[in-house]
């Protein structure tokens, strides 16, 4: 209990308090503390990438082992990840541990000619989903829905160059919608998120929220 609960909670409280207090202490010691801590955070973040990679590969290994729906796609995750790791380590034609050259490597070739087009293709499918979603959901069923529909049409039309060629009114109307009603809504959401984040931080700092330790929040 001491090692699993009390000590982690004390570390969180002390470090959280120090991170908060040093913002208001203009002393060289405080600045040195911040520099040291941020360096440590970055080192821990680097290890986090390994945990992420392990978690991803573990999840896909389980899918393959259990022959879950679509397990064949998980094979491609291994193929892609291991293939790129090997290419990166071999670093042809400059050899392992060679510095990054300006003229490129086999790894660079695969990145530019496989990963970049594949990534761009997947993202461009979003246009089709958005078109389909707009077609199905923008229905003027009531006043609220009609307002949303009207705003969407004005912004969609106002954001293309063709609208400015017809009249300046269209882009201006789109800008008004983005700068006033949109801004008001976004600011409200932003304030809500910020207050929620402060509240959650205080709960973690004072040990009320303990779910990050595992085993529930009791």
């Amino acid at each position, binding site marked *: 209990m001491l090692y699993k609960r009390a000590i982690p909670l004390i570390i969180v409280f002390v470090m959280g308090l120090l991170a908060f207090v040093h913002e208001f202490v203009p002393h060289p010691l405080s600045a040195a503390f911040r520099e040291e801590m941020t360096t440590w955070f970055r080192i821990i973040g680097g290890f986090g990438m390994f945990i992420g990679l392990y978690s991803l590969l573990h999840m896909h290994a389980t899918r393959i082992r259990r022959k879950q729906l679509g397990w064949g796609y998980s094979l491609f995750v291994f193929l892609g990840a291991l293939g790129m790791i090997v290419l990166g380590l071999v670093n042809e034609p400059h050899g392992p541990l060679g510095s990054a050259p*300006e003229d490129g490597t086999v790894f660079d070739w695969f990145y530019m000619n496989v990963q970049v087009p594949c*990534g761009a293709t997947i993202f461009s499918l979003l246009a089709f989903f958005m*078109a389909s979603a707009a077609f*199905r959901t923008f229905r003027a069923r009531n006043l609220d829905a009609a307002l949303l529909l009207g705003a969407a049409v004005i912004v969609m039309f106002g954001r293309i160059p063709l609208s400015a060629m017809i009249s300046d009114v269209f882009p201006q109307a789109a800008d008004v919608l983005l700068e006033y009603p949109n801004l008001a809504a976004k600011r409200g959401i932003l304030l809500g998120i910020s207050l929620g984040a402060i509240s959650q931080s205080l709960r973690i700092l004072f040990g009320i929220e303990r779910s990050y330790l595992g085993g529930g929040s009791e």
Partner: protein
Amino acid sequence: MSTPEADLRRAAIARRVVYLLLAVAIVATTLVPTEMKVVPSPLSRKVYDRLEAMPAGSPILFSFDYDPSSKEELYPMSLALLRHAFRRGLRPIVMTHWLNGVGLCKELVERTAKEAGKESGQDFVFLAYKPGGSNLLLNMGESLKGAFDKDFYGKPTEGMPALKGVGSLRDIPVVVGIAAGGTTEMLIAYGRDRFGFDLGAGCTAVIAPDLYPFLQSDQLFGLLGGLRGAADYETLIGRPDTGVKGMPAQSVAHILIIALVAGANVYVFLIRRPRRKEA
């Protein structure tokens, strides 16, 4: 007689028809060369004007925080920005917070530097990637050369001519963040508000509305939104490229979606009216 099965079948057919129409419209407009006049938006012009106002030789930090999935939207504006910076004789310091974006950044920097005849380490520096996000920014605010002791090519940043007079983020007057995620907010909270530089932003079109509150509060001096933002900037620097070329296809796609939405609403209105009369 409308049954749930029939409704589902109709919806599936409608979805496929929408996909097909959109694909045909985009492919046809892309294949047929069409010129479209682009009038830059005031927000794009503000980014251009801020870079124009910088004295030659000033350092400027570009944070290209995206990966291949957002390349089609964000690469064109990054290209235009770097071309402008090199043309103005500024000293670009280029980095990314996205590991998967390093290859794109490298290609971008080397391409624009070659075009402008600039030399790495002398006229610009490519710092590439380090993990840490907000903590990396805080480190850079204390000591940029401490956070990045070497550039991408392994050259020590200490004593590098391109970083002359740049000790930390406080010595960089302007930062431009091009983001596919939440790094613009991070640059505001952990960079601009602490170290006092002017921040401009570029982002995918879906993120742009989220950044309007920061424009009103002057935490951002300008914004390039999506491919349209890239087209605006290419027009402003007088060098049309993929952004401007993509505008006819984007315009046709938007008009098609508006027409489909309007058509669907008219159809629903017409089939509902007789039912109401019957009732």
